């Protein structure tokens, strides 16, 4: 599988949506024949993937949310989004 890059203005792919699952008390990403459980900060990232925010903006917002340095966050955000691009859940 070739390496994917995180998009500059990420959004959920068509047919993919973030859903709060009350039974399992967790955010899940729902797509065609796919259910991906999101852990920890993943749902905070995915909620911001609306196609209007840039990746840099998302990192900025998370840095505020977690009172962390943006350089610590950026790599993780990029890795997670790149992985989801490979699964075609983020475009």
């Amino acid at each position: 599988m070739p390496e994917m890059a995180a998009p500059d203005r990420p959004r959920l792919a068509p047919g993919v949506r973030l859903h709060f699952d009350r039974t399992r008390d967790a955010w899940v990403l729902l797509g065609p024949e796919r259910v991906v459980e999101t852990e920890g900060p993943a749902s905070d990232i995915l909620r911001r993937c609306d196609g209007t925010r840039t990746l840099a903006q998302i990192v900025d917002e998370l840095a505020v949310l977690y009172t962390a340095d943006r350089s610590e966050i950026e790599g993780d955000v990029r890795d997670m989004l790149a992985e989801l691009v490979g699964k075609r859940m983020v475009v």
Partner: protein
Amino acid sequence: MSAPQKLPAPLGLLAELTHRCPLACPYCSNPLALDDRADELDAATWARVFEEAAALGVLQVHLSGGEPASRRDLIDIVAAARQAGLYTNLITSGLGIDAARLAGLKQSGLDHVQLSLQDVDAQSADRIAGYRGAHTRKLAFARMVVEQQLALTINAVVHRANIGRVTAFVETAAALGAGRVEIAHAQYYGWALRNRKALMPTPAQVARAMQEMESIRADYAGRLVIDMVVPDYYGRRPKACMGGWARRSLNIAPSGQALPCHAAGTIPGLEFWSVRDRSLVDIWQNSPAFQAFRGTDWMREPCRTCEMREIDFGGCRCQALAFAGDAAATDPACELSPHHTMMRTLAESDASTADHEYQYRGRAAAAPATAIPVR
């Protein structure tokens, strides 16, 4: 609410809205005896079932059939599914859905459309579907789905007549703008069993198809999700059929009978409950059919002590019944089953027959390979 015991909550519900269908695919895995239109659950009952399913933990509903578009109240049913919070997937041939109806479905909250194609070559596709002109209409429908910005999966059931064109299926799906393509091998339950000899691919065909998929998968990464698995009859270990019996999903037949899997009705002696009489929670937890092969307690050797028992859950019960004559036996797809060689030999023998005349459901005689039955 949630299940009080340690029972896992199901993730998926296959809602078979009707057995009516304009096509007559020889690989149809619906039972020989179909549910009558008069016995179909009404939209209000489906709405109740969807609410109960969501409360039970179900996240996705697959609206299937037959052809779900044969239901005049399909839009109401989709709206109810979405209102219950379910991810709503429509599994369709595309026939019977025009642009206005599709827009109505989208407006009701439809999340995803899965369209079946019988082949990439129109003449062959129409012959397989037993419906002249179906392929052209399906392509037009696919374009409409993409135009209306709905997510699209192309589903291709492959068998001896079309397995040589798996790459072309993927190319067609990509050209149509699908996000996912599913190459599914025909499974020999229900009506399909009658056509096994005419459908079974050779081991060489299957190996070639797998190889082709591996070599193009990377080209489509990030563009198109490609799902394809090795068919049971040429594999070495069984698949976790349904993710394990009564563990991750359930089926509701058009008349309301709740089944742990699509073909469970073929297993004699199982007691099925109906959503007309019981709540889905009650069925999930207590239905004798759901209890019958849940977990690992029902297993015998070699499954009982196998280290894979909680991974493949002993494979498919219906296949065990079909080949070993016993639904509690090890799935013959497993090389540890005493029936494994027999299954493979039978598949190879079927595949080597020259017979490729299909038996079409509801049609009097077998159609010769060259003729396209007209409805």
